[in-house]
């Protein structure tokens, strides 16, 4: 990865340029893609990883360049070219019902890894976790089409509802022991690939950087509990988690998160919100629609609705948004396994028992309504969504909206239909609150609690 820190701003000499998360995020992304493009000619090894359950700390210790295939796919959506890749993959034989991220990536392989952001190098290893089962199927596609060996990182998740694993208890230790065994196996494989010996001190250094980054990330997440919310979890938040993933364990990542934390803290102190007239605080459950991301947010913000929290920010940043997830750098490998066990369960396994975490987040973020975004081709976020919605609506009497589209397949975005549903949702929220259009923040009581 490039560590160059070219100044992106045009500030006058001597003045400290103001941190612009969006621009800085773009610059970092460009750098990252640039690094990928030249990885092979620089003799660097490359690993494919997912945003959840990925052992990035170990890979960084070996100086692997990291490719995030999910980010490649979503970037195709953002850059409005995903449909071409999807069609290539369907022509090749993949069903319309298969995850569109996978299909976009198959399209990329069919186009000799030519991505709008640059050529993506072929990986020397892929770390695929069981957090989303499709990751494993995806890894098997690379095994076949690119000859990339995959290492399946098996992370035991939440087994049942009200599943409490306390750090250090027998269940946590049993799970951590299994994860540590896999990390040791992975380390052996990385040594073989790179010809380098594993360096425990370097792992501790990477972990220290992750700790600092996560510290600020936790603050950033908590800052959006303020009213008005300083950022929109489903717009600004997407850049933040991008950096959390791609720059995890790097100084650039720490610096970005620190500056972001400072900037948002100041914003909260000034009482400034993402929008001027925050009227409804919302929770977004599911993944975004990257082809119409800005449009989606605009539909909500035009009514004064801001996404204060999204479970996407929790699971797509590997579940690290909790204060207790701090590596003990005096015992780096054991601690990596222990924290990974906890983060995996937090980050996604409780996607499968989503009502528990969502009920808590509704209270913590003082939310007026919840928006569920069902993704046709992503069973990971969508299979239990309607049931979770029923449960929360019945128990908590929380207003909710269910919309459906896709992550990056524009063929599933129906603007008029979604707009109608969003408008109807806000009309009912408004009626419920008794407020007049144009009022600023209206408090709606959340009654009851899950029993």
């Amino acid at each position, binding site marked *: 990865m490039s560590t160059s820190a070219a100044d992106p701003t045009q500030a006058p000499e001597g003045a400290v340029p103001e941190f612009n998360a969006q621009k800085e995020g773009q610059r970092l992304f460009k750098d990252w893609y640039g690094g990928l493009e030249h990885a092979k000619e620089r003799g660097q090894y490359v690993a494919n990883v997912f945003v959840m359950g990925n052992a990035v700390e170990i890979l960084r210790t070996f100086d692997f360049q990291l490719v995030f295939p999910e980010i490649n796919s979503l970037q195709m959506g953002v850059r409005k070219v995903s449909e071409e890749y999807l069609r290539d993959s369907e022509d090749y034989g993949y069903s319309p019902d298969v995850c569109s991220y*996978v299909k976009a990536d198959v399209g990329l392989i069919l186009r000799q890894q030519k991505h709008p952001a640059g050529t993506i190098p072929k990986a020397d290893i892929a770390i695929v976790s069981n957090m989303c089962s499709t990751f494993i199927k995806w890894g098997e596609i690379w095994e076949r089409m690119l000859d990339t060996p995959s290492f*399946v990182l098996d992370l035991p998740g939440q087994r049942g509802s009200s599943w409490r694993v306390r750090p250090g208890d027998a269940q946590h230790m049993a799970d951590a022991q299994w994860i540590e065994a896999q990390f040791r196996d992975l380390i052996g494989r990385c040594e073989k690939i790179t010809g380098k010996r594993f360096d425990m001190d370097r792992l501790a250094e990477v972990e220290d950087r992750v700790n600092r980054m996560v510290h600020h990330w936790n603050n950033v997440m908590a800052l959006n509990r303020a009213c008005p919310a300083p950022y929109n979890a489903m717009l600004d938040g997407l850049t933040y988690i991008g950096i959390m993933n791609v720059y995890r364990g790097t100084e650039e990542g720490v610096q970005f998160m620190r500056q972001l934390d400072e900037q948002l803290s100041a914003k909260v102190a000034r009482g400034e919100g993402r929008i001027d007239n925050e009227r409804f605080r919302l929770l977004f459950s599911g993944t975004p629609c990257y082809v119409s991301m800005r449009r989606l947010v605009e539909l909500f913000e035009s009514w004064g609705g801001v996404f204060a929290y999204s479970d996407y920010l929790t699971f797509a940043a590997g579940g690290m948004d909790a204060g207790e997830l701090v590596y003990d750098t005096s015992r780096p490998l054991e601690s990596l396994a222990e924290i990974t066990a906890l983060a995996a369960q937090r980050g996604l396994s409780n996607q499968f028992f989503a009502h528990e975490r969502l009920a808590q987040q509704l209270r913590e973020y003082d939310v007026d309504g919840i928006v569920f975004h069902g993704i046709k081709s992503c069973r990971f976020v969508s*299979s239990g969504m309607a049931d979770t919605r029923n449960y929360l609506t019945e128990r908590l009497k929380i207003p909710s909206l269910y919309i459906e589209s896709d992550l990056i397949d524009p063929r599933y975005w129906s603007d008029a239909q979604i707009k109608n549903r969003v408008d109807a949702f806000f009309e009912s929220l408004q009626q419920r609150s008794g407020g007049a259009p144009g009022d600023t923040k209206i408090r709606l009581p959340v009654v009851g609690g899950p029993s």
Partner: protein
Amino acid sequence: MTPQPADENPAALHRSAEQAALGPPPPAELGARDPEQRLTELLEHCNDRRLGPVPTDDALPAGYSGTFGHFPVYFPEEIVHAGGLLPVNLLGGGNKLELKYADAHMGSFICSICRSTTEMGLNGSLKSLTGFVTHPICDAAKHLGGIWARNFPEQLAQILYLPQNPNTPGAVRYTAAEYQRLRGDVEKQLGRPIDDEALWRSIRTYNRNRALLRELYALRAAEPWKVSCTESYLLLRARTRMPAETHNLLLEEALGLLRARKRVAQDKPRVVFVGGFCEQPPLEMLEAIDDTCYVVDDDLLIGLRWLTADVPEAGDPVWALAEAFVEHAAASPVQHDERKTKEAYLMDMVRGSRADAVIVTAAKFCEPGLDEQVAWSKHLDAVSVRHLVLEFEEKMTSFEQMAMQLETFAESLLFALA
């Protein structure tokens, strides 16, 4: 009290007419004397079990106090069986169940087995279950754990985290710990321990069952004209609704009758069927395949035949089960194992059964099945093995078009083989 599974007391299997429904039909002396008629009787009995409800607690044979539901693919039935619970493999509602409630709980883009299993929960058909366990085979299946927890909190609803990495040293230890945890949770739910002796008895019963199922599949590969895919499937599937010890009796009798069948081989191509590891194709689809082909191997209900060798009857029973899972397991699109690529195990099936061709199916909306279908068909193309690609849904009711496709496929195979 330590439950005594009924194999210790076979007479207790048929204590009443209701209970007899869980066992095989009355023995041959009391029923038909003609072997073919007797076979029909046994198969009809199996089909009734397939279509029938999950037995209620008061209809269970002696030694059983309740039922325990589990979702495909593999579940270590021995653990709950040893606790005196009848393991009930939940396989959706087939093509006879009308969905009234599930639509409000699951999107239309979820596979049919998940939707109809949810329906069966919501319509009350599964209310007598002590527990329900699903597995990390895919994300839709994992979500069933949450759906169960939210809607049926009185049942022990869990995801059993069978490892997707059986290749790292330590996989057996982890699996054993996970089994031990499940055993403890079931004990808590039952309010009584599941002792090692009972577990050994169950392992022995299931070892016998595994051996009989291996015999059934060997017979199909050797003399497929003696047992069709549909018949074999019905015999296998019967275990999802009856105690393993009863199933052993059923299989023993059926195998004897099948072996003795006097049938002449017909001019049909030998095919392998894949894609039936989780959602089940309708019986009519299997019948349509039987009409034109000899299915000499398949992955239908592979979870019931998951352990490919006997579980060693020594050491610690939980460890023995875990070790068998890691070391002696079948394969499916939803289990990653570096020792068995999907292409390699399919080719093993083809070679092992001396098949001429493959029928590659996938259930609609099944991400892992659909992914595999592409890989398999590309591979079969590459190695020049003829194949037919079919998509199915458990709720399908029309088979004419499929039958025509099968007929054309079989004819072209026979022509090529001639």
